[in-house]
């Protein structure tokens, strides 16, 4: 296997592992917060339904955590196995947040174990809820720290290179690079949003499948409200991400927006297809791009003409950008209509088709996460460290990457199928009506 092949397969394997991990990681970041909110509401309102909601979410969460942990371990090791040259440099400059991430995991893992095994062990429910805070904080901070590493890849700072040697290394400057604020905020907020809509999808699905229990209605209302808040936040932070790109990585923005020539009063191109370098069937919003990039309708936006051809990212990231933004705006609309509809007692929000849209919102949010990451990562190409190290120079020279790709593809298939099978079986065998009944008899019937 020549090294070109090693580079190619290393890329595919990295893409595969990350795309798989991110599904479970996103749930891992978002769901603890949802459990916390539900349990808190339950304690406040003294409503057993919300407590049960928290409890059942927690049970399902264990399964997704397990897969998140093992695939995370895989990507952590694979970074060194597949990109040894990159990690050697990264180890010197950006190891601090990676190291901090392990503490976040530690903290999360310890308290998750305690939380799961102390249901009803304390007289005071609030004590039990307190144990969940470190879980949620740990999960969110692991996302914060790993995203800092990724931000560094987009805007490497905190060191100088002289004669091929790294000098003046400043780990804090590397951590707090210009890409960090928007990236971290966007990743964390979209994880909360996605977790809320995935849980909403489950509730809507149960309602569609004939269960008319108030438990599901409460779950749906709660998660849609949370989802709406975070979806709006995601769009606002997404807008800041665009402004960050315009300033620090204009080639990524220009490729995502098919903005070929540097100009003032730049229009925003939405949708469309690229045919021999010509944009067709697109919607053009006059002055849109200038506004998105610089908050001014007339500002100049750098186009792809400013970059050497071999430094222009693949142009298909435009589709990914559109997909992500469309889903984001769509989810705001859907959750917004639902929320207003609940206040005003509109009928449509109880209609079957509307509930199916909510069900669809769960998978769509995950697709938006995937599209967002692919946009961010492919848009950084050909660099693994922007401006410093090309992806092809970072890869391993090992000859067995193709075999490992097959091995891992099989593994993810087994894990993916396994987790879905187990989750469905877990909740089928113990439907919520049953559990509510069981708890009533247990407590003498005066609880609900």
């Amino acid at each position: 296997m020549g090294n070109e092949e090693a580079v190619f397969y290393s890329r595919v394997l990295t893409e595969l592992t990350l795309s798989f991990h991110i599904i479970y990681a996103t749930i891992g970041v978002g769901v603890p917060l949802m459990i916390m909110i539900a349990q808190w509401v339950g304690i406040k309102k003294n409503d057993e339904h919300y407590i049960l909601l928290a409890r059942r979410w927690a049970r399902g969460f264990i399964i997704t955590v397990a897969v998140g942990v093992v695939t995370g371990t895989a990507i952590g090791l694979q970074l060194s196995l597949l990109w040894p040259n990159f990690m050697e440099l990264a180890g010197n400059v950006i190891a601090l947040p990676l190291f901090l991430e392990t503490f976040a995991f530690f903290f999360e893992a310890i308290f998750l174990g305690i939380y799961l095994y102390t249901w009803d062990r304390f007289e005071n429910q609030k004590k039990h809820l307190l144990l969940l805070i470190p879980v949620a904080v740990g999960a969110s901070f692991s996302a914060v720290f790993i995203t800092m590493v990724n931000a560094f890849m987009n805007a490497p700072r905190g060191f100088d290179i002289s004669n091929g040697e790294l000098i003046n290394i400043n780990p804090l400057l590397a951590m707090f690079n210009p890409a960090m604020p928007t990236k971290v905020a966007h990743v964390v907020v979209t994880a909360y949003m996605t977790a809320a809509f995935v849980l909403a999808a489950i509730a809507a699905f149960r309602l569609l499948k004939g269960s008319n229990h108030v438990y599901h209605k409460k779950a749906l209302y709660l998660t849609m409200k949370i989802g709406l808040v975070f979806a709006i936040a995601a769009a606002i932070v997404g807008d800041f991400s665009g402004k960050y790109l315009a300033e620090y990585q204009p080639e990524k923005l220009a490729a995502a927006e098919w903005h070929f020539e540097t100009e003032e009063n730049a229009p925003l191109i939405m949708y469309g297809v690229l045919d021999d370098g010509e944009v067709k069937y697109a919607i053009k919003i006059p002055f849109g791009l200038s506004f998105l990039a610089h908050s001014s309708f007339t500002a100049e936006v750098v186009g792809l003409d400013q970059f050497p051809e071999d430094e222009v990212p693949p142009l298909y990231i435009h589709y990914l950008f559109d997909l992500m933004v469309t889903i984001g705006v769509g989810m705001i609309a859907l959750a917004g209509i639902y929320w207003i509809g609940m206040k005003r007692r509109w009928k449509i929000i109880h209609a079957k088709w509307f509930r199916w849209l909510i069900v669809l919102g769960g998978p769509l949010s995950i697709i938006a996460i995937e599209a967002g990451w692919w946009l961010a990562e492919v848009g950084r190409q050909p660099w693994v460290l922007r401006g410093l190290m090309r992806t092809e120079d970072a890869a391993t020279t090992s000859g067995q990457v193709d075999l490992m790709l097959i091995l891992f593809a099989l593994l993810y298939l087994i894990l993916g199928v396994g987790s879905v099978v187990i989750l469905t079986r877990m909740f089928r065998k113990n439907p919520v009506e049953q559990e509510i009944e069981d708890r009533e008899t247990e407590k003498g019937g005066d609880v609900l």
Partner: protein
Amino acid sequence: MTLEIIGITVLWTFLFGYILIGAIDFGAGFFNAYSRITAHEHTLTKIIQRYLSPVWEVTNVFLVFFFVGIIGFFPKTAFYYGTTLLVPVSIGIVLLAIRGSYYAFETYGARGHKGYSFMYGLAGILIPASLSIVLTISEGGFISMVDGNPVLDYWMLFTSPLTWAVVVLSIAATLYISATFLTWYANKARDPEATDLLRKYALVWSLPTAITAGGIIFELRRHNPAHYVNIQDFWPMFLISALMFIGTVWLLWKRQKYGWAFILLIGQFIFAFYGYGASHYPYLLYPYLTIYDSFTNPAMAISLIVAFILGLGLLIPSIVLLMRLFLFDKDYVRGKGDYHA
């Protein structure tokens, strides 16, 4: 103490932590599967699950800490080990993934599913074998430089007696550590039947552990004479280790003080592990890489050490809480309360 030594000591300690609690974890999974096949199920499963369930994720973090830390403190290891270990470590990852996820699937989703427990039992016992190969490779002789890139010679690796001695030791030690710990735990849970069975397993696996450990030192004389000479400088540590080993076996044999038996076992492995580590000094990979030429810059080293100290301030109280609730809580250990979500 130089920063290099602080760095490697911290990492070596976490590796030791992983090996110790990982061994308990993997061995327990194996005994669990084994007891299902041989119909000792009722005796063992409960004991094992009660200990394992709340802590399995914590075990994994020790490993993550080690490999993230080594890239942080010694970035050059990414180049040498990253390039050469693709296959063995990938196999290790797959086993870890099967083991971790199927453990969770079986425990929380499909209680009592035989196939799942068999899968994670078997995967668990192969993990020490596949990861211990890294230690063998670090002895040198299996990696050569071709066009400036390190290349691993698989044929040589798999035909070397050293490799197989290390593999057997890792499996035997895993089962020995695990059985000894669980003997104590079962005794604490007042379950005489399980205690007896586990005590028997512990005794059975003690001898292979001792024999292979000796065999490895013997093999090193041929494979890496320099290291062999170094090891002899540390003979008192290995002597203490051997005495502690005899102490553990004696107590197990006499059915006395299982707690002390386990503490002596920890001591045995501490002395052997740090003795081995110290004699390996200063090499991370014979003869290419020492802790000095692979070390990170001082700014990063200091910030990692500061982060480590702050992190410990957070972790130690949390771990104490975990142990108080699940390891030293009499009611929990005896299964009086089931508070699982």
